[in-house]
């Protein structure tokens, strides 16, 4: 049967064989109609948040179908259309896809064919043929003399309403405008689809200028493969493209420290500090710089303070461990490395520094193993602090 009453539909009632109680139903319906009409007249429109109007129309099989409160479906689509209008047909086709997908979950679609002022001889056959051809299976009602069309103050076809179980209009879309049509289908999808949490990539607070991030990423790739010259070039390019972007400067500072170019490193750290005066990265890198500059005691003191404030910062712990290692306090150093490793297994800096300490301790093979671990982690990718 074409245009059959959908399962779990709204209160669409077929009244073909219910002649006995017709008169009382008509009275109730008329009363309801005037009540709702009164309310809506006060609003004057059939826009979102106003109540829908109840109505009764014949379907293509000649059944009297009532559309009234309460709607049993979780969400009801009411669409006014005509066979002579291409966008109407496109809308029916689109809605059918959603109907197929969600009818068992509580989507109901009622379409009102507002063909002409009077549906003339032969037009009904055209409509039936079209419905068959487009495989439309939701309810098709014929607005024989455009009374419902007028009731809903339709001025453009198609016009589509989303109606809640409480008979409230949630959305009205005239035609198939780009944004609102997308919105219509999004609402339907959101109603019936379980919300899937997309795994979002870590979004940093600062969004660099378009095209900048790729140079930094390339620089990080090069850095991970120890191609420092190339890494520097790309990082400088990123910094040049977006002078407010801190990350390339962090990388440049790190490269400079690795290359023992301490004054360059300090320059970059100063630039970062200007952009982000409270940067913990700068504080940490400066402390590491102190170790490199053999101001170990001073560095240890400040790193301990840093650690007290940020006990879960694995890199800070590794720096502190390294500083103790440089002072040949190996037990303390290895103890701190163990804590750092517990916190983070993915940062190449920890095994890299540990390798250095083990070497100082004369444990060549263990040092080599840590170095390999560090290289392996570095190759997997670098994260900036």
């Amino acid at each position: 049967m074409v245009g059959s009453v959908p399962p779990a539909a709204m209160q669409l009632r077929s009244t073909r064989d219910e002649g006995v109680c017709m008169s009382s139903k008509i009275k109730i319906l008329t009363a309801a109609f005037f009540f709702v009409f009164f309310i809506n007249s006060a609003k004057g429109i059939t826009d979102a948040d106003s109540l829908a109007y109840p109505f009764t129309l014949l379907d293509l099989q000649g059944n009297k179908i009532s559309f009234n409160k309460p709607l049993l479906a979780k969400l009801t689509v009411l669409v006014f259309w005509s066979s002579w209008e291409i966008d109407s047909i496109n809308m029916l086709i689109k809605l059918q896809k959603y109907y197929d997908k969600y009818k068992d979950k509580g989507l109901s679609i009622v379409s009102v064919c507002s063909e002409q002022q009077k549906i003339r001889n032969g037009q009904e056959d055209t409509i039936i043929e079209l419905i068959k051809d487009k495989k439309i299976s939701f309810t098709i009602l014929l607005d024989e003399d455009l009374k419902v069309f007028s009731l809903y103050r339709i001025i453009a076809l198609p016009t589509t309403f989303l109606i809640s179980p409480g008979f409230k209009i949630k959305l009205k879309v005239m035609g198939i405008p780009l944004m609102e049509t997308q919105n219509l289908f999004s609402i339907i999808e959101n109603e019936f689809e379980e919300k899937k949490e997309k795994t979002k990539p870590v979004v940093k607070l600062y969004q660099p200028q378009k095209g900048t991030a790729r140079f930094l990423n390339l620089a990080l790739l090069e850095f991970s493969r120890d191609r420092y010259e190339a890494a520097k070039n790309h990082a400088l390019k990123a910094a040049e493209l977006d002078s407010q972007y801190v990350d390339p400067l962090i990388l440049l500072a790190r490269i400079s420290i690795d290359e023992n170019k301490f004054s360059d490193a300090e320059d970059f750290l100063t630039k970062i500090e200007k952009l982000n005066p409270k940067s913990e990265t700068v504080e940490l890198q400066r402390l590491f710089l102190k170790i490199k500059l053999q101001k170990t005691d001073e560095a240890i003191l400040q790193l301990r303070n840093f650690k007290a404030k940020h006990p879960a910062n694995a890199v800070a712990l590794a720096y502190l461990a390294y500083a103790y290692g440089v002072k040949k306090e190996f037990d303390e150093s290895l103890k701190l490395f163990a804590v750092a490793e517990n916190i983070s297994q993915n940062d190449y800096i920890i095994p890299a520094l540990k390798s250095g300490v083990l070497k100082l301790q004369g444990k060549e093979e263990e040092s080599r193993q840590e170095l390999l671990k560090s290289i392996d982690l570095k190759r997997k990718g670098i994260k900036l602090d």
Partner: protein
Amino acid sequence: MKCKNYFILSLLLMALLSFTSAVAQGTTPNSCVTAKCHTELVKTKFVHGPAAVGACVQCHELLPNETHKFKKIGTSVNLCNNCHDPIKPDKVNHAPFAKGDCVACHNPHGSDQRFMLRQKSIPQLCFSCHKEEMIKKKTLHVPVEEGDCLVCHQPHASENPKLLVKSGDSLCFMCHTDIESGLVEAKDVHSPVAQCTTCHNPHGSDSERMLSSGVPNLCYTCHDGIKQSVAQAVVKHKAVEEGKKCINCHSPHFSKFPKLLVNEPMSLCLSCHNKTMNVQNGTLTNMKELFEKNDKWHGPIRERDCSGCHNPHGGKTDFRLLRWVYPREFYSSFSIEQYELCFKCHQPTLVLEPRTTTLTGFRNGDQNLHYLHVNKKVKGRTCRACHETHASQKADHIRELVPFGKWELPIHFEKTSDGGKCSPGCHATKEYKR
């Protein structure tokens, strides 16, 4: 493995000690590298360990019955694997690696390049076999420009085609993280984005942004319908033909707006139509200002979708990029075809039925006043006679002034709860009541 390493390490250490003491004495016993012979082998920036310590016998052995003729011990790969951890083959293996021919790329004695590569740079090495034409392009991918083939390709083996370090888009997203994160938020994604190389040549091209061909031709390879539409357009939309062309309005990767638009549709249009523009056949109104000053908008405008009536790629009419026919004149002999544009949304019976109580509110009792005004063989009033197409300050976007040639007649339209009245220059004050 560890034992083997220790053994090799000790061997090298012994060789180094022996070499150091020999150098101190001015000779290198047991080594082929002397001040006079094979000196160049160890003068490179990166010297292979055995060569550096004069442990030539690690790799070479004297041929029987010969005094100065040597051969390699074993095949290339077997020999290398004596010391180096073997590299595991994968689904895709670089031809020299598959053949076990390490020395095709690496100089076994040393070179000035890292990894003792045979050529002066990685690209030179790669292009000793691969065709260099691929990089002789106007726009090069930055890693290609930098000569760093190994950002994307593995030199030995990979599980991915073309020895790529990662598969598909994940390779590109190693650097292009902005695209990756944008895709997560996007509502609409251009389908070729699943394979970046559909549009981009990863090495370089003669078009902008390494596109395999320029815009719009690249777009037209798939969007043939648009190509036809643009070609057949009577009136050309500047946005399609100038500047970034298709990219002026569409994002090639993703968008949160329909049709991959770079902005919400109406805002996008108004980003250009925010000023008066001179065009071939007249002047285009500053639409932004018009909408700001007039709050009663035509339906498609209320839906913020100019494309309801205008085809941004070029309409088939010769007027204002309109999608379908719409009369330009004040008077017109009525025919339904003339109002093709209007009747894409509105009921044609609006002007076909002389009597109605449902089709329109513009009726006196059941007398259809739209029919009365429009449906005439002679001097039928067109929609524009009374309605401002885009927006006005009056209900149902009725005009303030009727555009009767150069004379603009005030319409004096007033809407009442059950009808309305107007007093234009066309006729005396008339009222209607439903």
